[in-house]
């Protein structure tokens, strides 16, 4: 059961690392390094969102019959995070460190409480409901990873 949890939680960890690198680079005015870190962070985060929105959530909704519940809240938080991510890109392009760090801290807090809910509740529910489909789902998620 825990393979889906492990796989998706490891991605949270990876995104956190990229976030920390990008934030630190901006704080130290290392703009040349900040840009690739930010790009990687945005790409990894977007890929992770798609794995959930296109693979995990629909499968969970179908297996549990819970449509418009937890998955809908997660989708709406994804869209809040996407808005913050694009703001970060904008601040990075205009090299506005103060604004970037402000949006980054906001994103970090939102992202962490979102991850907490996913890891503590949603992934556990999903891995129970989808115990028989773990292999297929992981394969579909890896396929999205290859596309990214």
């Amino acid at each position, binding site marked *: 059961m825990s393979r889906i949890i492990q796989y998706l939680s490891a991605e949270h960890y990876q995104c*956190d*690392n990229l*976030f*920390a690198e990008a*934030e*630190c680079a901006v*704080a130290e005015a290392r703009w040349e390094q900040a840009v690739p870190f930010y790009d990687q962070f945005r790409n990894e985060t977007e890929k992770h969102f798609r794995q959930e929105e296109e693979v995990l959530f629909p499968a969970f909704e179908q297996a*549990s019959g*819970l449509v418009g*519940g*937890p998955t809908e*809240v997660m989708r709406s938080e994804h869209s*809040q995070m996407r*808005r913050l991510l694009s703001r970060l890109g904008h601040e990075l392009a205009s090299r506005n460190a*103060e604004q970037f*760090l*402000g*949006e980054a*801290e*906001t994103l*970090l*807090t*939102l992202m*962490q*409480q979102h*991850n*907490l*809910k996913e890891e*503590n*509740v*949603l992934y*556990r*529910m999903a891995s*129970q*409901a989808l115990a028989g489909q773990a292999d297929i789902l992981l394969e579909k998620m890896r396929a999205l990873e290859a596309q990214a």
Partner: protein
Amino acid sequence: MLPIGLSFQQAPPISVPFRFFITAPLFLLAAAALLFAYGPDLMASRHSAAALAATHLVTLGFSSMVMCGALLQLLPVLGGVPLGHPGRMAWLVHASLVVGSASLAFAFLSGRPLFFHLALVLLTTAFGCFGLWLVGALRKIREGGASIQGMRAALVALVVTVSFGLVLAAARSNGLAIPYVALASLHPQWGLGGWTVLLIVDLAYQLIPMFQLTSPFPARMTSGLIPSLLLMLVAKTLGEFVSGPAGEAISLAASLGLIAGYLWFAIVTWRLLALRRRKVQDTTLQFWRLGLGLLALSVCIALLSALAGDALPEAWLQMLGVFALPGFILCVIQGMLYKIVPFLTWFHLQSAYPGMGIVPNVRDIHARFHADRQFALLAVALAMLAASCWFPVLSRAAGLLWMVHAAWMEINVLQAAHIFRKVRRVARMRAAH
């Protein structure tokens, strides 16, 4: 079977936690005002009427107040628990905690039984309702891992603390014959070392790795520390009631176990923070570091006290109290408050008015707190209070510093509430046009 009841509702309305956060610094202010007014009289003994009043203003009015507000907010997030009637529950717990804490302080200062009775009824109501709500919420969480077990342990400690407190208050007001000295020693140990510290440890397991991007706490600690501390507190309690050398041996062993446990937590947390992946500094980190340092110091004094017994002068025990309560506990709680208040302000505004571009980010809100300067003031106020244990003549100056500190904290929370209302007003006006 799926926990279908888990509806994953969003956080409760911002008024639920904010009423607790706005009130809490006022109680800290009241405690500081007592220190200023009574000065050396308050510092004469940990058990002077003014010292007891001030201590309870801080433990009930400040730290329990913030923790209740934070739990009503955090638990739905940590465990996906929907809240039943959050507004009514918050109103009841908050109102009875406010009037109950104030009554208890008046009761200590005036010695009048009426205030003790009022405090008994109101604090039983506050913690009874809150405890039942927490039991209900924890039962709904099918899988929560170590975090939920820790919260259960903290709840057990809260029940023991409040029960001992009620018996002590009844004894003080009605002259009920009880083992007063033993209970008066156990009550703060369960309150500070149990309810408050267990909850802080449990929240730290979740919040430190997430927000400071550290490695997780070691599994041995997350599974073993809180149950062991609870067990040691039970042993300590038994030791107080077993007479003779056996009782003393149990008490000493339990004290050493508790000291080792708290020290283990301080060292591991310090190390995790030192190796954190997020390199950008934030004020919460400073508050945690100072708090952990003070925890280690208070544990060292507790060790001296356990080994020296009654030979240790009163000033050392007062200093232990200072490092533990306005030291470790206040630092950590204030650090968390300064993280959670800007986030909640942003989160509720952003959720209600997305895409309008008028919501300040958390750093903008936090910047108005001037938390760095306030942290420096806190360090000075703590040093002055610790010095007052030895030189009571300094206590009025310490009281004054703490009054400024508490008032500043109150202004900061009010500023966040003001930003919330201002942005909401602008958003509503725009929506109306």
